[in-house]
C-alpha cells in the first residue's frame, strides 16, 4: 500500500531562512518574557482589560490556540484511526504541532493570570473543585499533552495498532478539550450572549475549521522552507474538508443568531449590541465576510481545486475563527448585565467599556507565538516529521 512507502526526514535546518525564523521567534519570546516579568512586578495595569471586560486578547488567543491544537490532533488521526491512509503522511507533523500549540496555549494562561506563580494551586486544590471547568481543563490539557505525546511516539515508530488505540484516545480528549473550552463560556448564566448549550458544538466546529486550515498552511510553509514538492492532492483534499466544516459553521452560527433573535431577554438588546455594537465590524467584516463567505466562495469556485485557492481560503478561515472568538468573548463580557430583567441600567454604569488590545497583551501573545515557532522548528530538526515522498 502507498502509505507504507512513505519516507520521513528530519530537516537539515541550516538555511538562512531557518536561522532567520529562529532569531525572529527568539525576539518574540524576549518581548513576551519581558512583559511577563513586568506584569509580575507591576500587576496587570498595562493590559487592556477592566472590571467590565476582565478577559482580553490573551484569553481569545488561548481559545483560538486550543481549537487549532485539538483540530490538528483530530486530523492527525485520519490515517491511523479512520483508515484514510492517503492522509497518513501528515499525521506526524499534525500531532507534533498539536502538542506544541497546546503547550503554547498553557503558557499563555500563565501570562494572563493575576498570580501566575500560584498556578500550582490548580493542581493542589483543583481535584477538589472539578465542578469548575477551569480546574477540569487543567487536567484535560495535561492528559491531552501526555496522550498526544504517546500517540506521536507510536506513529514515529509505526506501531500501527497502538497508534489506533492512542489515536482514539486523542480524539476523545480533543473533543473534550474543545467542548470544555466552549463550556467555560456556555455555562455562564449571567452572560446573555454566552449562555447556551450550543457553544461547545460551535467551538468544536471552529476547531475543525482552524485545525485543517493550520494544517494546510503549515504543510505549505514547511515544504517551502525545505524547498520540497508537495502533494497537491492532499492539500486539495483538505480543502474539501475545510469547505464542509465552513458550511457547517455558517449553519450553526446562523442557528445561534436566530435562537437569540427569537427569544431574547430585554427585547433583544443583547443581540443588537452583538450585531451592531462597537465590535460588530469585526463580526461582520472579518468573521462573516472574510472568514466564512469568501473562503466558501473560493473553495466552491475553480480556485478551490488549485493550491493557491485552498491556501488563501485556509488563511482567511483562520483569521475568521480568531475573529469569531474575539467577538464572542469580548462582546459577551462588555454587554451590560441587566440587574432587573428587562430594565436597562442608565448612565455610566449602563455604558460598555469598549475593550481594545494593549501593547502589553500583544507582547505576551507574540512571546507565545515565538515559543510555538521555535519548538516547531527545533522539532522538525530533531524528529522525522516531514514526509519526503507521499
Amino acid at each position, binding site marked *: 500500500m502507498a502509505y507504507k512507502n512513505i519516507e520521513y526526514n528530519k530537516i537539515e535546518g541550516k538555511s538562512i531562512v531557518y536561522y532567520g525564523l529562529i532569531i525572529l521567534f527568539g525576539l518574540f519570546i524576549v518581548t513576551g518574557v519581558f512583559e511577563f516579568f513586568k506584569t509580575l512586578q*507591576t*500587576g*496587570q*495595569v498595562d*493590559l487592556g*482589560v*477592566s*472590571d*467590565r*471586560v*476582565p*478577559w482580553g486578547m490573551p484569553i481569545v488567543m488561548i481559545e483560538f490556540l486550543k481549537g487549532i491544537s485539538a483540530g490538528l490532533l483530530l486530523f492527525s488521526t485520519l490515517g491511523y484511526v479512520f483508515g484514510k491512509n492517503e492522509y497518513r503522511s501528515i499525521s506526524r507533523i499534525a500531532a507534533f504541532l498539536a502538542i506544541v500549540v497546546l503547550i503554547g496555549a498553557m503558557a499563555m494562561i500563565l501570562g*494572563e*493570570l*493575576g*498570580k*501566575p506563580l*500560584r*498556578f500550582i*494551586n*490548580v493542581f*493542589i*486544590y*483543583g481535584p*477538589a*473543585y472539578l*465542578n*469548575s*471547568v*477551569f*480546574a477540569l481543563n*487543567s487536567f484535560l490539557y495535561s492528559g491531552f499533552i501526555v496522550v498526544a505525546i504517546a500517540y506521536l511516539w507510536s506513529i514515529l515508530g509505526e506501531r500501527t495498532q497502538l497508534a489506533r488505540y492512542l489515536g482514539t484516545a486523542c480524539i476523545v480528549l480533543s473533543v473534550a478539550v474543545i467542548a470544555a473550552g466552549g463550556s*467555560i463560556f456556555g455555562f*455562564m*448564566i*449571567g*452572560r446573555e450572549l454566552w449562555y447556551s448549550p450550543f457553544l461547545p458544538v460551535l467551538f468544536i466546529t471552529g476547531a475543525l475549521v482552524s485545525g485543517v486550515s493550520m494544517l494546510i498552511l503549515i504543510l505549505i510553509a514547511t515544504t517551502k522552507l525545505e524547498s520540497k514538492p508537495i502533494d497537491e492532492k492532499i492539500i486539495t483534499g483538505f480543502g474539501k474538508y475545510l469547505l464542509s466544516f465552513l458550511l457547517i459553521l455558517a449553519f450553526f452560527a446562523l442557528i445561534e443568531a436566530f435562537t437569540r433573535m427569537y427569544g431574547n431577554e430585554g427585547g433583544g438588546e443583547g443581540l443588537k449590541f452583538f450585531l451592531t455594537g462597537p465590535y460588530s465590524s469585526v463580526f461582520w467584516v472579518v468573521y462573516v465576510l472574510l472568514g466564512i463567505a469568501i473562503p466558501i466562495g473560493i473553495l466552491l469556485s475553480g480556485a478551490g481545486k488549485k493550491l493557491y485557492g485552498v491556501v488563501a481560503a485556509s488563511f482567511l478561515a483562520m483569521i475568521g475563527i480568531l475573529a469569531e472568538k474575539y467577538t464572542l468573548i469580548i462582546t459577551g*463580557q462588555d454587554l451590560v*448585565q*441587566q*440587574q*432587573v*430583567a428587562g*430594565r*436597562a*441600567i*442608565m*448612565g455610566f*454604569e*449602563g455604558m460598555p*467599556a469598549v475593550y481594545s488590545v494593549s501593547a502589553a497583551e500583544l507582547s505576551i501573545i507574540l512571546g507565545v507565538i515565538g515559543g510555538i515557532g521555535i519548538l516547531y522548528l527545533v522539532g522538525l530538526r530533531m524528529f522525522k516529521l516531514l514526509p519526503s515522498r507521499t
Partner: protein
Amino acid sequence: MVRYAMVIDLDKCVGCQACVIACKAENSVASSTPDEYAKKRLTRWNRVITVYKEGKYPNVSASIMPILCNHCENPPCVKVCPVGATYKREDGGMVLQRYERCIGCKYCMIACPYGQRFFNFTEQPELEYHNPDVPGRDAGIVEKCTFCVHRLDKAIAEGKKIGSPDGVVPACTEACPAGTRTFGDLDDPDSEVSKLLASRRNYQLRADLGTEPHIYYLD
C-alpha cells in the same frame, strides 16, 4: 443555621452614596483615579446604580438601586473557582474570598451576574487609616464584599447581638442616613429582615437565574 441577608427599601434610598463611602472606609477599598474611571477599573464593593423603570423623556421614572455582592445561596462564582479561593461560609452563608489562594484567573468575575467582583490591577499600599481588622489585598487577585464579616465575627466573639435594628450590622447599613438597609438572619422568623420580607412585597436581582440572592429589594 444562621443565614445573613439584607433588605433594601428603595422607597427610602436617596442615592447619597454614604453606603459606598462607608464601605470603602471600613474595608480599606482602594479609591480610583480618573484614568481608572475611564477604563472602568473601579473597585466598589458597594455601588449605586440607576435602573430605568418606565416613561419617556422628560417624564422618566427610575429606581436608584444600591448594589453589593448578593451572597447568593447558589453562587455561580463559587462553582467556577478552580482552587476554592471563593467559598460559601456555612455559618452565616456569606460568600467569601481566600485572598492567599486566589490565582487571579478572573473566572469568578465572569460568572457573577451582578458584576460585584473586582480585580486588583495594582498593588494596594497599606495606609495608616486602613482598618487593621480587614486583611490587605495585593495585586493580581479578586476581591469583593464580605458583609463586613470582620465586624460580625468580632461581635460573635464579644457576645454582642447581630442584626438590625440594635445589633452589629455591616458598615453600609450603619451609614445609611435614611435607614434604607436592614440586616439580619433570614432563618430567624423574629429578625427584622424576616418580618420585612413577610410583610412587604419584595424581589431579588435576577432571581430568574436561580442564584437565590440574599439581598432583597422593597420597591
